[in-house]
């Protein structure tokens, strides 16, 4: 069935998903301008391929798939694994710093930015956007188990980063797309056993 964007409630659903796409993109790449470019690119792609969207399936997941593919293909081109943290949440989050004196949101943004992109993606999809592991797996094009292990590693690393007083001790190496190097894992174990 061909879907025309005009006379379809899909158009409204698509517009309604824009805030989520932006939040995801900003969290993913850490820079608002880059994020907005990505979202616009994804919207244009989605619009032009609306006929390939299966009505009745999850539109937001479909849009997120297009968006993350745009991000990761850009990432491969630029080899820019670590996100910027300047635009990420930090500046505009309204939670007063005093209420969370021991855990500043800027630290969270900074720590998030230091995660490998695939782990950051998994954490945001499941932990912030609220997708199920299954949905996240289908968005990221990987196995459910992979999403789970990415989330676990992201969580461990985040906790480790947040625990260190000055949270840039661990600069995420650029090629750390897959497994944590054993050395690093060992250090994490050491840190968590204290």
């Amino acid at each position, binding site marked *: 069935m061909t*879907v025309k964007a005009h006379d379809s409630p899909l158009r409204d659903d698509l517009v309604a998903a824009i805030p*989520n796409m932006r939040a995801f993109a900003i969290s993913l790449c850490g820079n608002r301008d880059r994020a*907005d470019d990505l979202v616009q690119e994804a919207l244009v792609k989605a619009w032009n391929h609306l006929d390939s969207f299966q009505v009745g399936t999850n539109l937001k997941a479909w849009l997120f798939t297009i968006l993350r593919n745009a991000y990761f293909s850009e990432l491969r081109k630029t080899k820019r694994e670590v996100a910027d943290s300047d635009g990420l949440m930090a500046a505009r989050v309204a939670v007063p710093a005093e209420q969370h004196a021991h855990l500043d949101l800027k630290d969270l943004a900074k720590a998030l930015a230091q995660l490998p992109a695939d782990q950051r993606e998994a954490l945001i999809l*499941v*932990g912030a956007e*609220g997708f199920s592991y299954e949905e996240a797996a289908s968005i990221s094009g990987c196995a459910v188990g992979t999403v789970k292990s990415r989330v676990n590693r992201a969580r461990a690393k985040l*906790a480790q980063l947040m625990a260190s007083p000055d949270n840039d001790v661990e600069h995420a190496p650029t090629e750390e797309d897959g497994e944590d190097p054993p050395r690093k894992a060992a250090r994490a174990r050491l840190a968590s056993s204290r």
Partner: protein
Amino acid sequence: MAEDEKAAGKRPCQEPDMAHEADRRAPKRAPDQDVLPGILGKQLKAAYGELLNTPIPDAFTDLIKRLESKEPTDRPTKSRREESDE
């Protein structure tokens, strides 16, 4: 079926199968606290929620208007170039 088998003989004692129970009761959606426990999870949610509530820049409504005026699904995709030309 596999369960019957288990219940029938493979397990000597009748401990409640916690893993199975959790599995059956778990909603499809992952519970937040499982993903990122404690204050870290709350802050991630808070920060993300704040982003969600940020008003959409005009560029997006403009983009949608442009797209709507173009009969997109009937045309070959040359979106990016068209978009930047306008």
